[in-house]
């Protein structure tokens, strides 16, 4: 256990330095002359976070945009990286997969999450049922990768299967299948893992939103003779529209950035790579930071419409207030 000592020391020093900085800021703000106190407060409270975000996010984002137009040696090469991205078959597969991911994952997760939230609403043991589906949220993508590798395990025909799915296939008289090897459907099997993780998130948010729909409205619709499906479509759905938008956008963004699942399950082989994974591969494995940056830029451009939309919704909300 001797390895813990040095680590603990690092942690203690870091916390002490941090406490000293915060203490200093508070002291300066507190002791400042009254005339400049408000201004100093704003600066003192905002500066640490602002500096970190500028250095960690704003500056790198600008820098990466420039990188995207350089080659492996850092020399400007115009739009070569983008030409590579949109012409090379492997790169095109990556783009195609990313689109499939960003369409399927949000729709399926939200769909399952919504259905589940409706089905178990007011059911007995609702809390336990919720926890079961929410649990994958707490599991890392790496852990999820290992869990699902076990599900997708493949053995040659005629041998005892160790993966649940292939066991079921064989039991139904089918041939076992190499779920992660056979393109293009292997992408779908990776997507299932992401859906498994994200559904709990959608379910929890939507469930809370459903409980926020006034019972009087549902009741009124019921008395007017609406069947459960009509009640759901005409009362519940409009009542939770805001939550649906939040869930869909959040999951879409998470999906665009997804990296760990592909990395741990196939490492992007067998035509399963996505932009986020390819970016890592190009920049940190293949020695092509320019290509990596170009991929990151494309990722950002894909996310941008969602940013604009969300910022707009946010501004509207602030105006209402």
């Amino acid at each position: 256990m001797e390895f813990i000592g040095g680590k603990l020391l690092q942690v203690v020093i870091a916390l002490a330095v941090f406490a000293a900085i915060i203490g200093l800021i508070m002291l300066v703000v507190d002791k400042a002359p009254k005339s400049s106190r408000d201004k100093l407060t704003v600066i003192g409270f905002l500066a640490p976070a602002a500096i970190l975000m500028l250095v960690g996010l704003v500056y790198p984002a600008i820098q990466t945009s420039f990188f995207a137009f350089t080659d492996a040696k850092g020399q400007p090469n115009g739009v070569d990286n983008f030409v590579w991205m949109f012409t090379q078959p492997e790169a095109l597969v990556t783009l195609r997969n990313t689109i499939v991911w960003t369409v399927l994952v949000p729709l399926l997760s939200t769909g399952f999450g919504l259905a589940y939230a409706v089905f178990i609403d007011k059911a007995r043991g609702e809390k336990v049922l919720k926890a079961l589906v929410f649990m994958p949220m707490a599991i890392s993508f790496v852990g999820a990768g290992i869990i699902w590798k076990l599900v997708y395990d493949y053995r040659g025909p005629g041998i005892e299967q160790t993966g649940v799915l292939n066991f079921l296939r064989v039991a139904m008289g089918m041939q076992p299948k190499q779920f992660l090897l056979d393109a293009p459907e292997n992408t779908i099997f990776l997507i299932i893992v992401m859906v498994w993780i994200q559904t709990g998130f959608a379910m929890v948010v939507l469930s809370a939103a459903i409980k926020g729909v006034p019972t009087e409205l549902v009741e009124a619709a019921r008395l007017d003779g609406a069947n459960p499906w009509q009640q759901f479509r005409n009362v519940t759905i409009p009542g939770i529209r805001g939550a649906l938008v939040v869930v869909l956008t959040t999951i879409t963004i998470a999906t665009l950035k997804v990296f760990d699942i592909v990395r741990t399950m196939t490492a992007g082989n067998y035509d399963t790579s996505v932009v986020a994974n390819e970016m890592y591969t190009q920049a940190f494995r293949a020695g092509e930071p320019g290509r990596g940056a170009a991929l990151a830029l494309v990722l950002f451009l894909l996310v941008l419409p969602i940013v604009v939309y969300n910022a707009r919704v946010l501004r509207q909300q602030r105006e209402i207030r």
Partner: protein
Amino acid sequence: MTATPVPDEASQETRIGPRAEQPSVTGSPEDAAPIMRRVKQKLTSRWATAAALLIAVVWTVPTFGLFVSSFRPAAKQVGPRSDGWWNFFEDWQFTFQHYIDVTASAGSQSPNLSQYFVNSLAIVIPVTLFILVLASMAAYIFAWGKFRGRDGLFIFVFALQIIPLQMSLIPLLQLFTQVLQMPSGSYAQLWIAHTMFGLPLGIFLLHNFISEIPGEMIEAARVDGAGHTTIFWRIILPLSVPALASLAIFQFLWVWNDLLVALVFSGGTADVAPITQRLAEISGTRGSRDYLNPAAAFVSIIVPLAVFFGLQRYFVRGLLAGGLKG
């Protein structure tokens, strides 16, 4: 609320969910149409229950399978005599050895997870604290400070949340190693990088909560002569405990489960790299020690699962505070 008659409430519950003992419909002097409707509703609710149970099972079985596998002897998991984990219930062979192998044994081939486990804790605890303090300070100023361009700046911070991490990695790594000459083999790069990436979400979540605190309380404190620092520490932080708790859980899970930031900034040594990184390494190499993967995976998910189940209530509340206002 009092206007709602009691029988209505009861019948509303039949809409969804398994309810065996319904106040019997047949006995009441109702005509045929409502009875038919109730029967129909009951049937649909039965289908809904079945679908819900199916989802619950499908969502739980993979993790359960991993859990069972982690206790099965090596020969049962890999090699010619291996079979599926579900055979465990007939062929009751149980071992705790894999857990000892992945955590305690010291050979160079060993996963040595206990070291990486400590790394994960050493990374995640400071980062969570840093983000909580810095984000709540910024959120307070955004909610209650007065300065020009406040709203525009806040929306900018919100938008930062959505910059893909991938864009920051290369420049930030260059900055750390080439400009600042930060030593590899220490946690510093990981702490700073995670804090940077976590701030936008943290500020956003806390801002929603802090801006809802009644202004009269802050006004009253100010009249009594309290400055911003006093208001922040004595009023804002204590009142924000629910939001702080949820953000803490959020950040904890996120940083603990992270792989990308770790791969780029840790240098990959046993001194610094977190448990996810080690797990990715050992599961990536298809080798003769694959039977250790389930136990290793379980060691890595035990802490987030404990945090998650222990503090689930706050976690959910925090998600909602962030997304559903307005």
